[in-house]
């Protein structure tokens, strides 16, 4: 039994962290080979295991970096590789191409029901909350009969972009008789989506670790009634509960990373996403409360962490959605 990382994984994590310290430079990240580290050998990469994904995304979460690695590489390139679109997959993994994946539709929440349909090789429909859509060179669209590839700038493709909680951007996307090419069945989504959920959870773990460190420092330095507020038992016990829950989240992330290719992968996906979503919200709420007023301000560095944790829960199904999935998968 081994809960650790290989030397290569550790080195990648370290150089990634150093690069991110100099600022959020996605070209520098791709130059390091981060994209290839997230792809399996069959998909043209040199990693792609649960441990690789955990290492990369926990590091991104700790650094608070907004990068196209989740949507364009883990999910986008992952789907393309599974669909046999090797060239475009490799372009996405190296950062040359940007892929956005349009899964959900208005009013359908997370259940995967879609109305977007193809007529011949033309797609018509509406997709909601498509991260990275504005910058994408290609869109992968879930339609009633499978997954389709749409090129940026195609006729009939319209977007209304907006900011996301995690600092990135998304768009509401409309397709009207838009030229597209079918690349495969919806089932091609399964493995890349499981990997993407691991990525979101590992990112959230990094954010939680950071939030805990920030809060601990604050409790040691902020004084009221002539004492550091961390010396008060009411505060200490809340912090101890918080740490205990973060430890649960850490183990849940490890469980999914270690079982990404296991026969009961889907049970682990649901368990981990449900637990991490629940703990992420708890950590966001508690660290704000433990900071007091300063935790409410945009100026203080907790604000983006708390928002990123909210985003982690809402992405790819929230904790209730995955609790239901866990029940369904366990009963099957």
């Amino acid at each position, binding site marked *: 039994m081994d809960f650790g990382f290989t030397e290569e994984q550790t080195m990648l994590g370290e150089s990634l962290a150093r690069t991110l310290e100099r600022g959020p430079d996605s070209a520098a990240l791709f130059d390091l080979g981060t994209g290839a580290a997230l792809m399996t050998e069959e998909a043209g990469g040199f990693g792609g*295991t649960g*441990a690789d994904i955990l290492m990369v995304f926990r590091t991104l979460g700790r650094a608070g970096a907004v990068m196209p690695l989740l949507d364009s590489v883990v999910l986008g390139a992952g789907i393309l590789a599974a669909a046999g679109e090797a060239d475009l997959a490799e372009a996405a993994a190296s950062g040359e191409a940007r892929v956005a994946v349009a899964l959900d539709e208005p009013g359908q929440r997370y259940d995967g029901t879609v109305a977007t349909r193809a007529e011949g090789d033309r797609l018509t429909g509406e997709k909601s909350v498509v991260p990275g859509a504005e910058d994408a060179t290609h869109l992968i669209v879930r339609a009633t009969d499978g997954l389709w590839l749409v090129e940026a700038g195609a006729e009939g493709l319209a977007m209304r972009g907006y900011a996301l909680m995690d600092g990135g951007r998304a768009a509401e996307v409309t397709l009207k008789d838009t030229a597209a090419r079918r690349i495969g069945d919806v089932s091609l989504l399964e493995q890349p989506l499981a990997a993407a959920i691991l990525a979101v959870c590992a990112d959230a773990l990094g954010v939680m670790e950071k939030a805990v460190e920030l809060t*601990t420092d604050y*409790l040691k330095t902020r004084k009221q009634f002539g004492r550091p507020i961390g010396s008060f038992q009411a505060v*200490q016990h809340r912090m101890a*509960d918080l740490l205990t829950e973060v430890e649960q989240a850490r183990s849940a992330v490890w469980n999914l990373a270690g079982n990404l290719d296991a026969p009961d992968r889907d049970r682990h996906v649901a368990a981990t996403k*449900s637990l991490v979503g629940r703990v992420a919200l708890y950590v966001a709420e508690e660290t704000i409360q433990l900071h007091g007023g300063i935790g409410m301000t945009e100026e203080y560095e907790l604000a983006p962490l708390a928002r990123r944790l909210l985003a982690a829960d809402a992405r790819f199904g929230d904790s209730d959605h995955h609790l239901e999935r866990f029940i369904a998968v366990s009963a099957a």
Partner: protein
Amino acid sequence: MDMSFSPEDQAFRAEVRQFLKDRLPARLSEKVRLHQELTKDEIEEWHAVLNEKGWLAGNWPVEFGGAGWTAIQRHIFEEESALAHAPRILPFGIAMLGPVLQKFGSKEQQDHYLPRILNGQDWWCQGYSEPGAGSDLASLKTTAVRDGDHYIVNGQKTWTTLGQHANWIFCLVRTDSTVKAQEGISFLLIDMTTPGITVRPIVLLEGTPEVNEVFFDDVRVPVENLVGKENKGWTYAKYLLTHERTNIAGVGFATAGLAALKRIARAQVANGRPLIENPLFAARLAEVEIDLMAMSTTNLRMLAQAAAGQVPGAESSMLKLKGTQIRQAINDLTRRAVGPWALAFPSEALEGANDDAPPGPAEAAGATRAYLNNRKLSIYGGSNEIQRGIIAKSLLGL
């Protein structure tokens, strides 16, 4: 990263499972499954079976007659034993006193007491808590005053689990009251048949006399029964507590409890469907199961760290906290699952005070009893509030 057990550990698990299948009497496992009280003879019977196999003291080195298992092997044994509803190995001699004697006891003490723990000649109990010394254990007041080659012991111990069956008690006693509380405590072994000792049972809220008060009135204890040095008892007590904390997560108990809960929830009917399909109940159940999956991995991560030579610190406090929360949540759901039969007070039926079986499904009485009895989980072994204090102080440096 490889989350699977090594082939050696998997083979060990298979061996343990086969042993339990061959040697665990159904008579005993059925009582454990239904949370019925085991008699002294029944507990000793299981100890003897394990001792014959050389598996009674998995945590002891081979040189002292133990199995010398790794932390992972011990975890596997505990998990399989819980899943098979084997009686729990009494911790007092094996998990608590044994390691203290091996580390701090004299050669004579080791040669005399350790084999007697294994072969069942002695049944030990723990004399730590006092009416005025619970979480603040170091404030204990039971005194031992030197008189020639004896100590004269006076005072009172409490919460002495299964002390009614014990013939020996290891005690923390005050041998110096002029110094800081922790520096005047000694570790003394006392024969329960010595004149001046009175044991009074305490009936717990589920109706069983699981614990006792033990009174000491001018009890004469030979000085050779002192473990280690006089006034160094607190060091030994802390060492003992770290051993008490192995298996503190109770993963095996929780896993077995969850399996039992699912069996009940499949058999019970709510609105014409099995209770396990009721959305509200299923959600509560799933949340606990997901928590247990994560906690069980935390436990294995800590065991792997221990195997790599790292000393577990405050992480074991997190395991205590989360482990007891999960077990109590399972007890609560099991009690809910039996529906209106949770109204019945199970005490009479479980003690065999009348010949009638308890009302409702066979598990009902045990479910309510376990719920009540396991309120203790978050109180003993350092209450959960004490654990939170340890986490805050050592992990946060607050």
